[in-house]
C-alpha cells in the first residue's frame, strides 16, 4: 500500500494488446463503414476471440477475473479507436449477469442507463439496437430482459446503436431491488469515462499531427502560438481524466468505506469518483474534439476527415446517460447532501 500511479505490468500488456488489436482491426474506416447503425458484427466476433466480453466476469463463471483497473485500460483503447462495438455496455452489464452466452460474448448485453417509464419502456438504451439482453430498473426492481434486438435504431449524433427497449416484454427476470443496479451504473460510468479519455487522446493526436503537417504562410500552422496554446491544454485534461478514472477504479476495486470529505479534498468513495470521472472525462473529450476539429480548418468539418467522427462520439457517449447538469446535481447530492424539501 503506497502511491503507485503507473500501470501494472499486466495492464501494460493489456494496453499493448488492445491498442494493437484496434489499430489493426478497427481503423477509423471501420467505424465509418458501420454507420449509421454503429455496430460491426465481425469486429465483435473478433473481440469475442480475444475473450474480452467476459474479461471482468469472475473465473467461477468462465470469465477472466480482471479488475476494474484492467477494464479501464481496455475501455480507453475502445475510445481511442471509436470501435463500433458495445464492449463497454456489455462489460458493465456483466457486473450483475453471469449467463454463459454473455460471458463468452455469443450474446450481447446492454445497460438501460435510465429507469423505465411507467409503461415499462426503456428509452434510447445505448447498444439497445443490437443487444440480446438488457439490464435496468423497472419501478423499484432491477430486471434483466431477453428479447430479440431490433437491429436498427434512430440515426443519431454519436453513431450509437441505441434503441428503445421494453422492460416487460420478453424473458424477464427480477434480479432484486433497484439499488443493486447501482453497481452496474457505477461500472458503466467508469468505463464510459475511460472511453472518453481515449477519444480525447485520439482527437489530440489527430490535431497535433495535422498542425505539424499543414502549412499556411509558408510554415506549419502548429508553429503559431495561438494554435499551440489551444492544444497545450489537452494533455493536461487527458492526464487528469485518466488519473481520476483510475482512482475511481481503484476505489471501486479496493475501498469499502470510502470517504466523501470534499472539504479536505479527501475523496475515496468509488461511486462518487466514478461520477466525477465521467463528468470530467466528458468535458475533456468535448474540449479535445472541439479544438482539434477547429485546428483542422475547413477540413475539420469535411466528412472525409476523421476528426468529425470523434467530435460526434464525444457528445454521444457523454450525453446518453443524461444532461451533464442533471448528472452534476446528482453528484452534488452525494457530496453535500440533498436539498431539504
Amino acid at each position, binding site marked *: 500500500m503506497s502511491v503507485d500511479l503507473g500501470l501494472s505490468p499486466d495492464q501494460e500488456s493489456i494496453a499493448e494488446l488492445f491498442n494493437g488489436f484496434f489499430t489493426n482491426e478497427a481503423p477509423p474506416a471501420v467505424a465509418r463503414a458501420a454507420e449509421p447503425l454503429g455496430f460491426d458484427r465481425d469486429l465483435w466476433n473478433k473481440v469475442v476471440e480475444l475473450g474480452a466480453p467476459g474479461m471482468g466476469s469472475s473465473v467461477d463463471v468462465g470469465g477472466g477475473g480482471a479488475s476494474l483497473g484492467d477494464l479501464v485500460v481496455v475501455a480507453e483503447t475502445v475510445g481511442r479507436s471509436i470501435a463500433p462495438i458495445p464492449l463497454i455496455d456489455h462489460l458493465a452489464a456483466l457486473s450483475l449477469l453471469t449467463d454463459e452466452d454473455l460471458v463468452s460474448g455469443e450474446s450481447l448485453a446492454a445497460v438501460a442507463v435510465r429507469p423505465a417509464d411507467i409503461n415499462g419502456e426503456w428509452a434510447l438504451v445505448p447498444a439497445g439496437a443490437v443487444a440480446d439482453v438488457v439490464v435496468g430498473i423497472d419501478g423499484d426492481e432491477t430486471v434483466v430482459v431477453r428479447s430479440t434486438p431490433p437491429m436498427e435504431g434512430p440515426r443519431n449524433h454519436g453513431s450509437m446503436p441505441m434503441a428503445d427497449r421494453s422492460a416487460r416484454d420478453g424473458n424477464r427476470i427480477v434480479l432484486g431491488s433497484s439499488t443493486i443496479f447501482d453497481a452496474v451504473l457505477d461500472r458503466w460510468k467508469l468505463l464510459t469515462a475511460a472511453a472518453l479519455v481515449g477519444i480525447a487522446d485520439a482527437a489530440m493526436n489527430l490535431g497535433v499531427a495535422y498542425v505539424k503537417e499543414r502549412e499556411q504562410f509558408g510554415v506549419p500552422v502548429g508553429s503559431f502560438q495561438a494554435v499551440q496554446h489551444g492544444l497545450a491544454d489537452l494533455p493536461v485534461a487527458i492526464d487528469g481524466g485518466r488519473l481520476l478514472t483510475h482512482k475511481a477504479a481503484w476505489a471501486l476495486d479496493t475501498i469499502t468505506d470510502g470517504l466523501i470529505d470534499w*472539504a479536505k479534498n479527501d475523496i475515496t468513495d468509488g461511486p462518487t469518483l466514478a461520477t466525477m470521472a465521467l463528468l470530467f472525462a466528458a468535458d475533456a473529450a468535448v474540449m479535445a474534439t472541439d479544438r482539434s476539429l477547429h485546428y483542422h480548418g475547413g477540413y475539420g468539418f469535411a466528412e472525409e476527415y476523421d476528426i468529425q467522427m470523434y467530435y460526434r462520439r464525444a457528445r454521444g457517449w457523454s450525453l446518453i446517460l443524461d444532461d451533464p447538469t442533471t448528472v452534476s446535481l446528482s453528484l452534488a447530492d452525494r457530496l453535500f447532501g440533498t436539498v431539504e424539501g
Partner: protein
Amino acid sequence: MDFSLSPEVVEFRDEIRSIIGEFVTQEVTDRMHSTGVFDAPELNLELGRRGILERACPGLGKGDPIEMYVMFNELEKAGAPYDGLAVALMIAAVVNKLGTEEQKERIIPSIISGEALVCMGYSEADFGSDVASIKTRAVKDGDEWVINGSKMWTTLAQVAEWLILLTRTDLDLPKHKGLTMFILPMNTPGITVEPVHTLGTEITNATWYDDVRVGDEAVLGGENNGWRTMTTVLAFERGVMGGTNAGVPLLRHFHEWAVANGVFDAPTTRERMARSVIDMQVATLLTMRSAWIAASGGMPGLEGSMTKVFAVEAYQRASRWTQATAGPAGLLQFHEEGAAAEGFVEYDARHSPVMSIYGGTTEINRNNIAERHLGLPKSR
C-alpha cells in the same frame, strides 16, 4: 494504480494535521492577511523542532517527495501561510546538493530548524519570463565580488535571513552561460528593500544592491554556473510545494457561508460547487503524480507545468463563480459585517489572478507543453 498513502505517510499526514490544528490559528491567518507576510514563524519552528523540515528536505532526511506533497497539500488546504517555508526548503535542498561543506554547515541548520527564511532575487524590473537576460552585475575585485543592480518580486526580503541572488558575471558568454548564483545574508551592507504592495495581499519587494561585497563563500554552485543552480532549485520544487489546491479552503468557507445564509440550494450553485470539487480532486491527483514521478527517480518538470496550468485556472474558475454568486457580499473584505465567507470570497478574487503569473506564467508553461510534450516547433 494505487492511490493509497503508505501507513507511514498516513502517520506523517496526521502529525501535520495535528500541528496545523494547533499552530494555524485564526490569529495566524489574520496576521497573514493584515501584514501581507505569508509566513508563520511559530509553525516553522514547530516543524523544525519535530525534525519534520529535515525529514522533508530532499537529500537531507528521508526527502520523500510523497511526504513533501502531503505536507504542502495539507498546509494549502488548511489555508496556512506556507510561502516562506516552501522557498526555504527548496534552497536548503539546493545548498545541500550544490553547496560547499562550509556553506552546508553555515546555512542549512538555520533553515531546517525553522528559524531562517530565504528570499529569491531572480527577476528584475525589465526581465520576468526572460530571466536569463538579467543585468545585475557581480564583478571580481581581488578576493571579493562586488554586486550592483536591482531585483523585483523579492518576496519575504523584509523578513528573510538569506538571499539567493542571480547575477551576471561574464558579459562575453551567451546569456544563459554568464550567470552566477550567490547566497548571502540579507544584512550584508549595501542591500536596500522597498515594499511592493500587491492586489493579492502579499507584500513583495523591490531590492537594490549598491556595491554589495561578498567573498567566494557566497558563490553557490560555481562561477558562471548560475543557470544550472537556478534550474536545480526549480527541480526541487517539483510542483509539489503547494500552489495547486488553493480553491479548497475557498470552497469550504464559501459552503459554510452559503448554507448558513440559505443560498446553497440553488441548482446553479450546487452544480458549480460540484464541478469545482472535481477540479480540486484532479489538481491534487496531478500534483500527486509529480510527487510519484520524483519518488520513482524521475524529474517531473513538464508535469509540473501541466499541473500549474490546470490547477491555477481551476482556482480562478472557483474564485470567479463564488464571487459572482455572492453578489455584493462578495465585495466585502475580512472583518466587514456581512462579508461572504467572512471575506475569503473577496480575498480569493484578488489572490487568484496572481497565481497564473508568478512562479512561471501560464503562457510559458503552455509553451513548454507545446514544445516538449506535443513536439510542436519553437514559436519564439
